[in-house]
């Protein structure tokens, strides 16, 4: 269809869930009063700015490097990246230019049953900047306000190789990254809160060509949806430019969510010469293999491994496996339910059709809901043993979700047990048949609709608790005899 191939690389910044900042003991708590989580170090006050490296930040980064299949650096070293901006207190950012913590890794994407490998060029640790708010909007404001609470929060930057070929792949990559990092527990990756940010480098080239075309850098995409829409728009824009005989200007562009388009931004920094050099205050630390192994041992079963296990061990279809492993807590939940009711497909179906729906509606995560694995297992067991109809079970489940009460209690309280006792059912059927001779007559003379009426009567008589399959079978039997 397209004469052009899309080439996309992503630069993702992720805020780490450490308690304190990268180089000082200020809290990293989100949403607090401005300028209350700062100290002489992160505020860069003369006399007070000696950096004290956060051990957890390093551990989390090594953990991420391992989970993303990277080579881990032999030493922990930091460099100064020098530039002037209002949200940068020191006039330089401490980052890792020469020795990023991880290099040459990869991530697996599962697209339509196929697996695609996306390379991770590098992964490194750096400081976040403060936050600017513009009194009246960045163009029109006469002044801006600065809050340094965020300055110095540990950021992990992950750079992909330009292996992504569509907006959809980019979105999948981002989601996969999020899944993995959330599995590791090192970030909550919430784009709306800014704990995950994404810039895209986008270019087009004629199909079959190996040289890269001019690329634009796209910023300001603040949700998964914006990433998708922004890239999609920019690809189209570049396509139009090329098709009309023009060439793409290499520049930085902003995604305008409201207008649904990208706009060129003038470069923030007149000179892009960052003059990177090793920070004299941070002596390098070797990374002993023993420490790497200790960290590796803390990595839980990762999404890909779990996905494969769900397919192989539980014979689940790929789609189910993908949905169930997307969030670690959900996959854990699934495993727990299976440990009391070992019917993988049934449990999977229930979770995907019932539980996810209720969670979405209530706007909560699995960990926050009142549903626990064992009670759900019990409920599904009862359905499996025909002690309760599927329809009834949904009602019970909804109440379990709302109240957290045990299913057995709910069923008993509301008398919702399914009647599967043949004798009882036969009796009721007998009664209904003798009360409705006309319908019996109708059925026997060929009006099949009468069957439905009779079933309805039986259901009414049993307040809907009769096992429908059994009723159908017994009724059919009686009528045909």
């Amino acid at each position: 269809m397209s004469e052009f191939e899309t080439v996309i690389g992503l630069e993702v910044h992720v805020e780490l869930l450490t308690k304190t900042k990268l180089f000082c003991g200020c809290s990293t708590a989100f949403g607090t009063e401005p300028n209350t989580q700062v100290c002489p170090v992160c505020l860069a006050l003369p006399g007070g700015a000696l950096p004290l490296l956060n051990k957890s930040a390093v551990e989390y980064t090594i953990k991420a490097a391992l989970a993303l299949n990277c080579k881990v650096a032999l030493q922990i070293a930091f460099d100064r990246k020098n530039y002037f901006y209002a949200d940068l207190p020191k006039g330089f950012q401490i980052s890792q230019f020469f020795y990023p913590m991880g290099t040459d890794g990869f991530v697996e994407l599962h697209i339509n049953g196929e697996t695609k490998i996306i390379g991770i060029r590098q992964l490194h640790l750096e400081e976040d900047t403060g936050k600017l708010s513009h009194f009246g909007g960045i163009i029109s404001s006469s002044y801006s306000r600065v809050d340094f609470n965020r300055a110095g929060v540990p950021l992990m930057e992950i750079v992909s190789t330009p292996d992504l070929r569509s907006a959809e792949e980019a979105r999948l990559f981002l989601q996969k990254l999020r899944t993995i990092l959330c599995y590791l527990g090192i970030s909550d990756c919430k784009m709306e809160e800014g704990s995950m940010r994404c810039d895209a480098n986008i270019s087009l080239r004629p199909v079959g060509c190996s040289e890269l075309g001019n690329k634009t850098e796209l910023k300001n995409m603040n949700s998964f949806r914006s990433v998708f829409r922004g890239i999609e728009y920019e690809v189209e824009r570049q396509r139009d430019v090329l098709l009309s005989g023009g060439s793409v200007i290499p520049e930085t562009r902003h995604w305008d969510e409201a207008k649904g388009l990208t706009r060129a931004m003038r470069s923030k920094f007149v000179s892009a010469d960052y003059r990177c050099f090793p920070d004299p205050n941070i002596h390098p630390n070797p990374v002993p293999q023993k420490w790497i192994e200790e960290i590796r041992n803390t990595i839980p079963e990762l999404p890909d491994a779990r996905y494969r296990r769900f397919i192989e061990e539980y014979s689940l279809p790929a789609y189910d496996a993908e949905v169930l492993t997307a969030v670690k807590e959900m996959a854990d939940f699934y495993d727990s339910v299976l440990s009391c009711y070992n019917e993988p497909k049934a449990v999977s179906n229930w979770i995907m059709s019932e539980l996810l729906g209720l969670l979405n509606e209530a706007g909560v995560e699995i960990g926050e809901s009142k549903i626990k694995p064992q009670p759900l297992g019990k409920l599904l067991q009862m359905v499996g043993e025909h002690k309760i109809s599927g329809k009834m079970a949904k009602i019970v489940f909804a109440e379990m979700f709302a109240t957290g009460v045990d299913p057995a209690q709910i069923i008993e309280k509301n008398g919702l047990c399914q009647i599967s006792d043949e004798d009882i059912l036969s009796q009721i059927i007998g009664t209904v048949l003798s009360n409705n001779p006309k319908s019996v007559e109708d059925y026997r003379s060929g009006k099949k609709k009468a069957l439905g009426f009779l079933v309805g009567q039986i259901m009414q008589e049993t307040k809907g608790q009769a096992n429908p399959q059994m009723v159908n079978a017994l009724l059919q039997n009686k009528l045909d005899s």
Partner: protein
Amino acid sequence: MSGLKFTGEDIKQAAWDARINLTPDEEDSLARQIENIFGQTGFLTENKLANVQGTYYSHTQRGTLREDITLFSLTREKVMLNAPDADDIFFHVPKIVE
């Protein structure tokens, strides 16, 4: 003499990058000094340097790692103590866009 020469433009660009305006006298004065020091940097081209690792730290002492425990932060009052232009909550800067 080291291979590289410098020009007045290099000084101007450097001052620009450092966010400093030099007067013409200061530029001249600096140019003389740079001429002087560049004249003494012949040793930087010595072959011996080719395989030498740079020293960025006086000692090869191990870096230290800090436990991830919150320590004090400044009260906002102390934070704003030296601020040239602020309200009680934020620092103020002139508009960003030129």
